[in-house]
């Protein structure tokens, strides 16, 4: 594989950039692999990469129904954070933060990681108390957290509404300075390129039609491009998890829901933090191109449509304008939707299943992007060693039977109610 560097850039400039190698190949599926990963999104690609890098398992195929990076890894609002209170979530995502910091070097691909900080706004004394508690929990787990008062928040984001007569006055906020954003497509492409270079087959336009299971063991997968044998198969398909689970006669604690996001027209730099509204569900950051990147509530009903409806968008942007009134002057450039695998406690599942050789990675709700490296790393470990790592031990499938739920938000089983 050609290494990307300033020298390769100069060299290729001399040939009008016409002689770059393809970033990854387009192979046909072989008859058999050691491991097959279903789903060529961020998590699937990262899993294959860490299988090859950490566990030296390179006879791996990623099979993807569409094209890699066409699902949620290309549809999210690129936020990376580890501001969780519960240990399982905090330690897992802080492990991920380390991988994010090293990612561009590690992948030899600029993922434009920008640790610009995230501020969760508080709009009442009670909320300040909750944030103080969460901040303390974070610091106990080695994650940076700063509790800001109203004046401190005003200094950082003066464009928010600090006038006296507002419905949800800003009391302060909780900031994680090391959180930030990254270029989401680059993450998918960077993992794909490195995985490919280590021998992983990335097979696109290949739909799974069924599984070969006998005597409680997985033997392979049937696809639109032929049958593929494998003793180990990892499911990494986010919003499509239930569709594949049905083919395996499994019913999972997951519902698929729709989440919309949108960007405004590009404007000059105005916001250098990720900011979330505390009195509803709205978050915003400014992309490198100058667009305001915004998102919020789920549409609120089961959906596989990858496109949303106006009422939710209207509701979300009303919150945005309440928080930052200048947004009302901006024109909307694009809106789009993605489908979320909403687990019943709001936390993910990375685990083995009752079928030997079948591994499950799902339930990311709307927090999957930031988890990409940690998810790939722990899922690769789980597949390679056939046992879960300490980091993902809390993300077990049977916690719903044993009662060890990881309900970070305290929402109960209807996580689609926001």
């Amino acid at each position, binding site marked *: 594989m050609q290494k990307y560097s300033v020298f390769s850039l100069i060299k290729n400039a001399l040939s009008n950039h016409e002689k770059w190698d393809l970033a990854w190949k387009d192979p046909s599926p072989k008859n058999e692999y050691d491991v097959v990963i279903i789903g060529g999104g961020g998590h699937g690609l990262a899993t294959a990469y860490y299988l090859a890098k950490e566990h030296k398992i390179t006879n791996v195929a990623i099979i993807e129904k569409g094209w890699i990076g066409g699902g949620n890894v290309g549809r999210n609002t690129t936020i990376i954070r580890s501001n969780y209170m519960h240990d399982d979530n905090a330690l897992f995502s802080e492990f991920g933060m380390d991988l994010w910091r090293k990612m561009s070097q590690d992948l030899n691909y600029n993922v434009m990681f920008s640790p610009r900080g995230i501020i969760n706004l508080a709009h009442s004394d009670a909320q300040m108390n909750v944030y103080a508690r969460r901040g303390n929990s974070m610091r106990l787990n080695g994650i940076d957290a700063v509790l800001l008062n109203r004046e401190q928040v005003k200094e950082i984001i003066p464009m928010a509404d600090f006038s006296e007569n507002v419905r949800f006055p800003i009391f302060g906020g909780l900031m994680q300075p090391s959180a930030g954003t990254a270029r989401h497509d680059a993450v998918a492409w960077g993992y794909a390129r490195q995985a490919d270079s280590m021998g992983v087959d990335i097979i696109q336009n290949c739909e799974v039609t069924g599984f070969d299971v006998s005597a409680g063991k997985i033997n392979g997968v049937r696809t639109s491009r032929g049958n593929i044998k494998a003793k180990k198969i990892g499911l990494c398909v986010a919003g499509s998890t239930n569709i594949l689970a049905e083919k395996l006669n499994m019913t999972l604690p997951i519902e698929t829901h729709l989440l919309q996001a949108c960007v405004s027209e590009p404007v000059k730099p105005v916001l250098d933090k990720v900011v979330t509204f505390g009195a509803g569900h709205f978050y915003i950051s400014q992309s490198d191109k100058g667009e305001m990147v915004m998102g919020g509530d789920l549409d*609120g*009903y089961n959906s596989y449509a990858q496109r949303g*409806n106006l009422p939710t968008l209207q509701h979300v942007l009303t919150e945005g304008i309440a928080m930052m009134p200048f947004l009302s002057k901006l024109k909307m450039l694009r809106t789009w939707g993605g489908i979320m695998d909403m687990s019943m406690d709001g936390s993910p599942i990375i685990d083995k299943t009752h079928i030997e050789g079948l591994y499950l990675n799902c339930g990311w709700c709307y927090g999957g992007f930031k988890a990409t490296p940690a998810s790939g790393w722990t899922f690769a470990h789980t597949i390679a060693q056939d046992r879960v790592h300490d980091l993902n031990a809390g993300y077990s499938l049977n916690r719903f039977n044993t009662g060890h739920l990881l309900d970070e938000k305290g929402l109960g089983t209807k996580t689609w109610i926001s």
Partner: protein
Amino acid sequence: MLHIKCPHCGMRSQNEFSYGGDASVKRPELGKDISNEEWDNYVYNRKSLRGKHWELWQHLSGCRQWIKVERDTATHEIFKTLKANEEIS
């Protein structure tokens, strides 16, 4: 925007409704001994079908009745609506 035909009030906009989840889920009978598995299936496990899906909605800003709606989760097309006490055929 979805338009849902409330079996009581007629065609109304999605804004007036709130969603109540899969309508095919049945609560285990009260007072009956059931296994943990049956209870988990009721509380947590969902088929989350792609395609035709019977679901509960409440006409919150209208007559406040719960209704059943058959909707395609891939296209958002609505085929049929029933009163809460009417059986899905």
